[in-house]
């Protein structure tokens, strides 16, 4: 799992414009969080920046939203030139709307309360099972 997090951190730096300090900042004992991916961890640490308007935010900001990958962001940018994206449109673009919802605003959606909720961290925690050590 740690290896997986390292790859994710590397990806963030290459394609999402993250600086190394941003990923490591707030990490206890200098290690990446195993429970949550680095992008989500960063977003939760910087909740004040969210929610962002999907129809107005620049590319760099969209890339910071958990659940919006580089390809999805590209599709959002081309689609919103022609139509105003509503929450249903976003649902057709993203892999998991539940992951994205607390962090975005559309003409018909506001994440009232979600973003400040203390239980947000728990809700978004990884549901995957712990990876067992091969040589315990």
């Amino acid at each position: 799992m740690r290896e997986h997090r390292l790859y994710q951190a590397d990806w963030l730096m290459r394609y999402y414009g993250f600086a190394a300090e941003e990923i490591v900042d707030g990490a206890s004992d200098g290690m990446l969080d195993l429970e949550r991916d680095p992008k989500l961890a960063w977003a939760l640490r910087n909740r004040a920046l969210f929610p962002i308007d999907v129809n107005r935010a620049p590319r760099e900001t969209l890339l910071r939203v958990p659940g919006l990958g580089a390809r999805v962001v590209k599709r959002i940018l081309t689609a919103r030139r022609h139509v105003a994206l509503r929450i249903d449109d976003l649902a057709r673009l993203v892999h998991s709307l539940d992951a994205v919802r607390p962090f975005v605003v559309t003409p018909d959606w506001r994440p009232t309360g979600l973003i400040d909720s203390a239980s947000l961290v728990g809700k978004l925690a990884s549901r995957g099972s712990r990876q067992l050590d091969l040589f315990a």
Partner: protein
Amino acid sequence: MRAQQRRKTWGADAIRFVTGNAEKENDLFSEQEAPELPTIGAALRVSPRFLDLADLVCRHKEPTRYNLLYAALLRLRETPRFLEIASDPLVRRLEDMARAVRRDCHKMTAFVRFREIEAPDGARFVAWFEPSHYIEELAAPFFVDRFASMQFAILTPRTSILRDGTLRFGPGARRDDAPPLGDFAGAWDVYYRSIFNPARLMKRAMLKEMPKKYWANLPETRQIAAMSSAAHLREDQMVAAPAAKAEHGVARVAARFAEARTPREPADAYEALLREAKACRLCSLADCATQIVFGEGPMQARAIFVGEQPGDQEEVRLGGVDEGFQGLRLGRCP
């Protein structure tokens, strides 16, 4: 007042597209006469992107695919860049269908299994396959390229790809028309067992790469259930087993490596000085310098040549005192 000629555009719901499967769809229209077609009006221009998309979507098994494409055409007339609206349900539907067709084609190139038949004029290869969509024509060029010198036939329920000198498409076939795998089945079983790693069993990833609908024609998959249930046991055995004897030569390499890593006392004052110089960071040159250029020669020499400073050759490439320009000139002295 001039009467304006209104060109009639048939809406997406007003048209029924009838494919060759009409008798199966129990279509009432097949009994009526086809209406007279009007003369074509102004030409309709679309982007190449739509044509590529349509090519793929037409190969999908979905019966309403032509209606969907026609609806997209109508939208394209009002919005030439309609396909850029990836969030639109119609665009999404069409892209999903195109992706399914591409994926089916990709899987066909992976899962076709040939059997060899002896024929008087050389060996022939026959395979049976069941694609999910109408992709045989799309996938055929791959096989022609890949098996350029083979004469083969890939039989499917709808058509058959025949290649003997030329490529052509014959009628559909049944599973029994292809000979059974025979000995090949055993070979595939052995191969699959050998590459199966019980410690790395990831069911979801495996099913994503090898969907169950193809298993019927991949004989080695019969073993998967048994191997999966035994995987944990095999993994535990692997962990419990004593460490295997190291290979010949590993011990020597490990010893050399260990020796190189242990720091030892400098042999003499010269080596101590060399080490200190290599690690020196007393001035800012340490940040951009490539390496130091230390002195060379016998310690008991009666003369020392002291150069002004290392040149680029010495520092960057060679690291030795005599190598660069000055060294060249010294070397020429008798």
